[in-house]
């Protein structure tokens, strides 16, 4: 006879796996992996990617190679930040939240300033003026 607990176990296991997967996805796409306070990074752009799954800038800041994550491309482009407004070698200031792990040279930008122009890729999260 089959134990009625088999069904319960398989549901519990499925739920645990889904929760683990969901938590991991949240850590990447949301803000839970970043510090609360604002962080500012200045440097030179070494690579620009405006596309899916999310836009990124690679920035050389005093010899350190940083990865600046931005919004998904639709949102980044809506903010006016396209591949035409910035190029490799440009000076950039990125304002946002850096990784909780300070060894990791990675941040998520809410505002990007290039060529004297400000692009708010997450307008609802920018620091108060």
């Amino acid at each position, binding site marked *: 006879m089959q134990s009625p607990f088999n069904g319960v176990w398989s549901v519990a296991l499925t739920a645990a796996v889904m929760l683990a*997967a969901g938590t*991991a*996805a949240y*850590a*990447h796409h949301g803000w839970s992996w970043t510090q609360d306070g604002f962080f500012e990074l200045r440097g030179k752009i070494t690579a620009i*990617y*405006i*596309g*899916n*799954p999310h836009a990124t800038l690679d920035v050389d800041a005093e010899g350190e190679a940083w990865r600046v994550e931005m919004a998904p*491309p*639709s949102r980044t*482009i809506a903010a006016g930040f396209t591949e035409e407004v910035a190029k490799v070698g440009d000076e950039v200031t990125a304002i946002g939240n850096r990784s909780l792990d300070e060894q990791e040279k990675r941040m998520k930008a809410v505002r990007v300033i290039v060529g004297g122009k400000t692009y708010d890729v997450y307008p609802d999260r920018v620091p108060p003026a």
Partner: protein
Amino acid sequence: MDEFLAGIEQLAFVRGLKASFVAYPIVNALHIMSIGALLTSVMLMDFRIIGAFRSLPRAAFVALLRRTALGAFAGALVTGALLFSVRARGYAAMPIFLAKMTLILLAGVNFLVFMRRARGGDEPAGGAVTILAVLSLVLWTSVLFAGRFIGFLN
């Protein structure tokens, strides 16, 4: 190689996919759907070969699941290639991506070895076939995990 990958990134439909609001998430969802179907069919097939669900006729059950797995793999291959295309050079430079491709290759070799052994009909479970089924379970699960980590290590 770098030029070839850069060429892929420049294809008109790839550029469209790269900036799209709707198409990319749909391709992404179809990739997940294919992987779900692939892993499920592979696991059920391997468990049956190892000796579970003995009430189900082995040959018919395995044949059905093999067809499902091959179809799902084709879907995963097409959608995966599209996801890869938008940032081909970036993904190709990632060790975790290369690890995933190697694991898929190994799983493919494992499948071919299994098919060679299974030729000649309905051999009973046990011995080498069981080892191949366990290997298949380990490899495909590893492919899944490696794939998921691509999104977190780039």
